[in-house]
């Protein structure tokens, strides 16, 4: 039976955050081989922060993402290979290179209120003959009606699908449902959902989106991804099957990929610890997690305090540099408090 939605597995992109962007060619080959054989139709491969993300601010890639992409393209027999690009971080030349290597789906991501910076890149994707997906990050930060206006811009630039992206894993089931329903009601193009699990709602939110007729759903195998992780692909597929949604993917094969290939990369994936929960609770971009832990260690402050302060400052995706700013400020405040006690 044909699938009622299209699944994109982002283990090799969003999962890159969990491994500090150190995927190897062999790991990429093994993951793509397993997912492709299980019938996953789209596999995303890029630096966690998208093409061109390798940097001090987000972490340098262990292996050039174009080499990883080439390996994925070579390994995939049926699956399309997707890339992510954040305008302001990646540039058009990066997308041209990715297309030349064999990527056929371009996912162009902006903050949920800044869709107009994606016009050139969505346009370029279409010119190159790629499928173009608009990716509205941190969608919890704007109400459904405002999100719709941004989604309409992406549609007008040529997007074939626009995603509600819960980058902070901060959406309740009602939040996710209302955003997807609003977009579905008013857009001609497809609608997708990308969920994170910081509040343990990633699968539930994806199922709520399916009830509203969402066309595309993202997962990461074992949930490997930013923050406490993504919607775990194998759990999503199993839950969909039990809910009566055809996925077109073989659940038991996915379980094997999860256990044999992806789980060993990060055995603790799936645990929602205090820091992971703080992301969802404070509404902070998921990929800040490991950077906040490192900064907490360097400056002798509490990582949870860093994340809560970032939430108060309303920082958006890409502002990893503010983690250092906050850590330094907390360190100074602690020193001042100590000095005043002496």
């Amino acid at each position, binding site marked *: 039976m044909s699938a009622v939605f299209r699944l994109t597995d982002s283990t090799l992109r969003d999962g890159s955050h969990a491994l500090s962007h150190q995927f190897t060619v062999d790991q990429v080959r093994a993951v793509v081989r397993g997912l492709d054989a299980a019938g996953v139709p789209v596999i995303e491969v890029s630096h966690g922060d998208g093409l061109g993300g*390798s940097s001090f601010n987000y972490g340098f890639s262990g292996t050039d993402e174009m080499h990883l992409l080439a390996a994925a393209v070579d390994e995939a027999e049926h699956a399309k290979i997707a890339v992510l690009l954040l305008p302001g971080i990646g540039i058009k030349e990066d997308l041209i290179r990715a297309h030349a290597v064999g990527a056929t789906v371009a996912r162009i991501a902006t903050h949920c209120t800044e869709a107009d910076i994606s016009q*050139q890149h969505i346009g370029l994707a279409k010119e190159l003959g790629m499928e173009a997906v608009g990716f509205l990050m941190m969608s919890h930060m704007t109400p459904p009606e405002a999100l719709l206006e941004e989604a309409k811009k992406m549609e007008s630039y040529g997007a074939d699908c626009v995603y509600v992206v819960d980058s902070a894993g901060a959406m309740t089931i009602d939040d996710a449902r209302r955003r997807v329903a609003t977009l579905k009601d008013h857009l001609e193009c497809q609608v997708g959902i990308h969920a994170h699990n910081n509040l343990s709602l990633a699968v539930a939110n994806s199922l709520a989106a399916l009830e509203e007729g969402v066309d595309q759903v993202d997962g990461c195998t074992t949930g490997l991804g930013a923050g406490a992780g993504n919607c775990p692909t194998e759990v999503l597929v199993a839950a969909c099957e039990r809910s009566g949604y055809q996925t077109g993917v073989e659940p038991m094969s996915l379980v094997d990929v999860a256990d044999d290939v992806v789980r060993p990369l990060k055995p603790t994936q799936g645990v929602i610890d205090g820091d992971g929960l703080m992301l969802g609770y404070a509404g902070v971009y998921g990929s800040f997690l490991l950077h906040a832990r490192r900064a907490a260690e360097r400056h002798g402050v509490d990582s949870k305090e860093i994340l809560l302060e970032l939430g108060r400052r309303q920082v*958006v995706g890409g502002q990893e540099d503010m983690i250092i700013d906050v850590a330094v400020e907390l360190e100074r405040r602690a020193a001042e408090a100590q000095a005043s006690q002496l």
Partner: protein
Amino acid sequence: MAVPCAIVGSGNIGTDLMFKLLRSDVLDLRAVIGIDPDSEGLRMARERGLVGTPEGVDWLFGDDAGDIAIVFEATSAWVHRQNAPRYEEAGIRAIDLTPAKLGPAVVPTVNLDEHLDAPNVNMITCGGQATTPIVAAVRSVTDVPYAEIVSTVASKSAGPGTRQNIDEFTKTTSSCLVEVGGADHGKAIMILNPAEPPILMRNTVFCALPEGYDPDAVTDAILAMEKAVAAYVPGYHLTSPPVFDEGPFATPGGPAAARVITLIEVEGAADYFPPYAGNLDIMTAAATKVGEAVARHLMEVPA
């Protein structure tokens, strides 16, 4: 004595620049040139006794323009490409605030005096003006194999030109870190933040450091540069002393022993823009500084 000058473009940038040029002793601002008769900027120019003409750039080459010697381009890259050859033919020096980058990039605290004879100089980007000085400061005391900057501005302060040309912003800024800042490799990242109330402009500069660098010398150079920039952008300041992290880091410029992080906030002078728009303020302040240097140079050298 002052050198006659004009602003082409009566939008936000042109209007903010007008306030700054009106305070200059060496620049005699005579006209603001626009294309929209209902422009707020032109009205404000006329209120201040300037010519505020909607005739477009043609006015500059007509009989009423007189002996204008310096023009500040505050239109768009596309318009500047049309105008630049006409300025040069007429012997008018152009200070370009668009990303057209036809002439050499100038950052006042780094290479102000290097291009005083160039017919056309470019002010790069707001991020470039805010961060290149720090890279140059570090470079003055050690090699910088790789420099990376993150520039975050309030969504409200980024106009349609910036939004539709975000690649040009990052590429122009990256190249400036190398060409003017002196780093071996450069990368620029731009982020828009829609928070309300709007955030002040933020810039973070990461400089890779080689083995054997002297942290005190690096810190001193950065703090001295902070003062030098603040002399013409009063709201420019570090939010903390420079932060050093020991590596090693595998940068595009090769392995680096350490990095120094400089965290900068730019509060605008609020001449015309609100204070959060430090990104626009630093552009117009830098352009004024460059314009004054060119004016002094023109007065020294007989034509």
